[in-house]
């Protein structure tokens, strides 16, 4: 079964500055995953645990939070608080029998850096390996898992191709 993971990225104003400037097309060219969406905040420390959980309720397969380096947050402690909240959600996911790796915190420098794209790609690859979220509700999710029918095993065409 193949699917395009729904990845919700919550990032602060500063770490996403250039990513936003790139625009959708620019990001696509840079290799930004098709199923990833950017949710911009004034500071990652503004994120509440309930917001991260809501993302899973709304059908996210993976969630990542991008904030400033722990010792360089514009709001001093914001990204550290965000990291703690990510850990709280991770712990809760494990309690529910779900892979904690579905949520991750990244501390990145401000402005555009290839690391921003890399973080999204890393999450995309990770979630493709883990598979769709066990919380997914196929009726309500915006990005339903597409089942790819197995191709029937056909005998390979004889060498030389078809006779004209």
């Amino acid at each position, binding site marked *: 079964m193949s699917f395009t993971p729904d990845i919700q990225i919550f990032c602060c104003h500063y770490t996403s500055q250039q990513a936003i400037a790139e625009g959708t097309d620019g990001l696509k060219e840079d290799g930004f995953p098709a199923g990833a969406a950017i949710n911009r905040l004034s500071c990652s420390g503004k994120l509440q*645990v309930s917001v991260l*959980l809501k993302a*899973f309720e709304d059908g996210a397969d993976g969630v990542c939070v991008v904030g400033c380096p722990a010792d360089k947050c514009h709001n001093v402690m914001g990204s550290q608080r965000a990291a703690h909240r990510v850990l709280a959600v991770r712990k*809760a996911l494990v309690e*529910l*029998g*779900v892979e904690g790796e579905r949520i991750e915190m990244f501390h990145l420098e401000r402005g555009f850096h290839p690391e921003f794209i890399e973080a999204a790609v890393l999450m995309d690859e990770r979630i493709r390996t883990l598979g769709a979220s*066990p*919380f997914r*509700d196929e009726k309500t999710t915006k990005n339903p898992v597409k089942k790819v029918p197995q191709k029937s095993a056909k005998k390979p065409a004889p060498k030389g191709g078809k006779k004209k």
Partner: protein
Amino acid sequence: MIIAERKPVAEIVEMVADAKRVLVLGCRGCVSVCSAGGEREVEILASLLRLGCKKKGRELKTIEATMVRQCDREYIDAIDQWDGQYDAIVSMACGVGVNFIANLRPTDIVYPGVNTGCYGGSTEQGVWTEQCAGCGNCVLHLTGGLCPVARCAKSLMNGPCGGSQNGVCEINKDIPCIWQSIHDRLQRTGRRADMDKVAPIRDWSTSGHGGPRKVVRDDLTV
């Protein structure tokens, strides 16, 4: 305040296995201050319960509310406003709140959302420690304000045990020997002689060993 901690989510999901609609009820008292059962925690638990049930392939509807307190009759009576809208209540108050709901709402099913721990305070952000055992017979006037019942691992009443080493408790190296602290504090405040007063054999009946405790104030009863 009363210190509590949210139960593991899987345990609560299991509790509400038969319910389709749950009232998640927080308390703005102690559990709100220690971030276990206030408005924010209600929102989180409700979300986790919905996710947990969704994972098990069923839908759970939740109502989220937070009472001023759950240890007073008038606030419990306010639950009437949701009559017929829930199959079970998950109370995020301390055990007192759960008991009050059970006492006053005989036909309601109520489950605890938190584990009630102790009487304590926040010694640093995100850390709460036990300070009082609620033993019903306070001796803090003799011990420099530091409680040996709650804070000595053995609840000793007449000085430290032989395991007190360098001011640290032998049971847990992360906590100070409270009798060392009591000694130091009494000495510092010129009350060292209080250490020589021998505490008599203690009557623990006030500590719950004589059954559930009750306080009656005739000046307040009506």
